[in-house]
């Protein structure tokens, strides 16, 4: 009987510790690559000194922190606008880095235009930077993006979004024009990190263990009574 009590206490402590430690795992929550090799992301002048970056493109999700088999065919919808007076060209060592801040939204969904299963959507504040004259622009989150998903069990915690754009036509490549990043077209890949609760499989294992323990206790009690 003492052994049973100890076993119970130990199990309970383990379950509580496990639940506490794994209730919000920081990690990669989604990686995607654009399907094909076109340049569907478009940067256009959206007014004096401002640039809009937008695109809807078929993508392949190669990794996702959800009970979904990969690769997954999906659509990326991206809508970003530059923040006024944030464009700059900074010389760092042998290169000049062009940078500008962008805010907006993105969604990675089952169907185009943000419809169907919401694999991951978010509101982002991004720092966009690339080598002047180069074919690439990288976008990293300045503030923690706010994510939503219908398949990833997200919980509050630090988040990040990172997009890689390339295929910008050279020359002139990435450049500033009129105090903002000049128009271009590009391809896109992306990777995101955040906090997700343990996978359903882990929870199921815990549940099965708990049920097994309960049944064992019930049997023992019945045997003792008889």
């Amino acid at each position: 009987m003492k052994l049973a009590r100890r076993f119970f206490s130990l199990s309970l402590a383990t379950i509580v510790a496990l639940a506490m430690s794994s209730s919000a795992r920081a990690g990669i929550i989604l990686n995607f690559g654009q399907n094909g090799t076109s340049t569907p992301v478009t940067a256009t002048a959206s007014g004096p000194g401002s640039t809009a970056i937008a695109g809807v493109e078929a993508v392949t999700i190669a990794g996702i922190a959800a009970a979904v088999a990969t690769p997954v065919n999906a659509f990326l919808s991206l809508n970003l606008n530059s923040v006024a007076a944030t464009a700059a060209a900074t010389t760092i060592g042998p290169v000049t880095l062009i940078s500008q801040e962008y805010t907006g939204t993105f969604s990675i969904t089952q169907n185009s235009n943000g419809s169907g299963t919401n694999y991951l959507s978010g509101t982002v504040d991004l720092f966009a930077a690339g080598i002047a004259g180069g074919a690439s622009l990288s976008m990293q989150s300045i503030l923690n993006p706010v994510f939503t998903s219908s398949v990833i069990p997200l919980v509050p915690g630090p988040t990040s979004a990172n997009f890689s754009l390339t295929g910008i036509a050279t020359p002139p490549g990435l450049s500033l024009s009129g105090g903002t990043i000049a128009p271009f077209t590009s391809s896109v890949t992306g990777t995101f990190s955040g906090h997700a609760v343990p996978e359903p499989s882990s929870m199921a294992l815990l549940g099965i263990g708990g049920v097994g323990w309960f049944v064992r206790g019930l049997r023992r009690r019945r045997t003792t009574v008889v």
Partner: protein
Amino acid sequence: MNYRRILPCLCFATLVAFGMSSSALADVILNFAQQGGGTPLTATSSPGSTSITGDIPVTISGIAAGIPVPINAFLNIHLNSVANTASATTVPPGVTIITQQFLGTFSITQNANGSGINYLSGSGNLLAFGIAGGSSLSLQGSPSFSSSVIALAAGATSASFSLTGISGLSITNSTIASFTSSVTGTFSAALGSSSAATAPEPSFAGMLGVGGIGWLLRAYRRRRTTAVA
């Protein structure tokens, strides 16, 4: 009759001009994303230098080689920092960015350790930059490429890697501090005329073909009508 002679000449000239103009356009040649949600890319720092390495399963979602996607492959990457290139610079809107130059190689191949089909390999300089304290690092550069499936031509190249999942990007001992991360990447280059990416779209080629057959039939009918008369 003159008109019929002029038309083929004009068509031929148009096709040649089209072929020449599209034979060496810089284009996106490959996109990939890491499989799963781990952080298998490792940066290891020692005083003054950092090496970034990994041998990671990836999914190629786009490739200019006429191969069906997605393709399961491996990214093998070995980069070493260039001495005395790490710096922290504040740029608008008041963001401190950490930068460092890296030199090395990468390969995206059929099997691990760079073996099997060489989808795309490269070597050269990459500039790494990311927001201080942030969880991301970007690597950009113009390496030299090789591939056994993409018909590469001479011209400008571009490589862009996105790393995320870093627990606070920082500089320690004059170099980017150790971290682990995930990775995605996208590449562009000039393509040879035999590449699927620079070939005219099937629909466009089809329209040209249908037009050509129509023109031949028309000429054949006219000749038959003239012969009968």
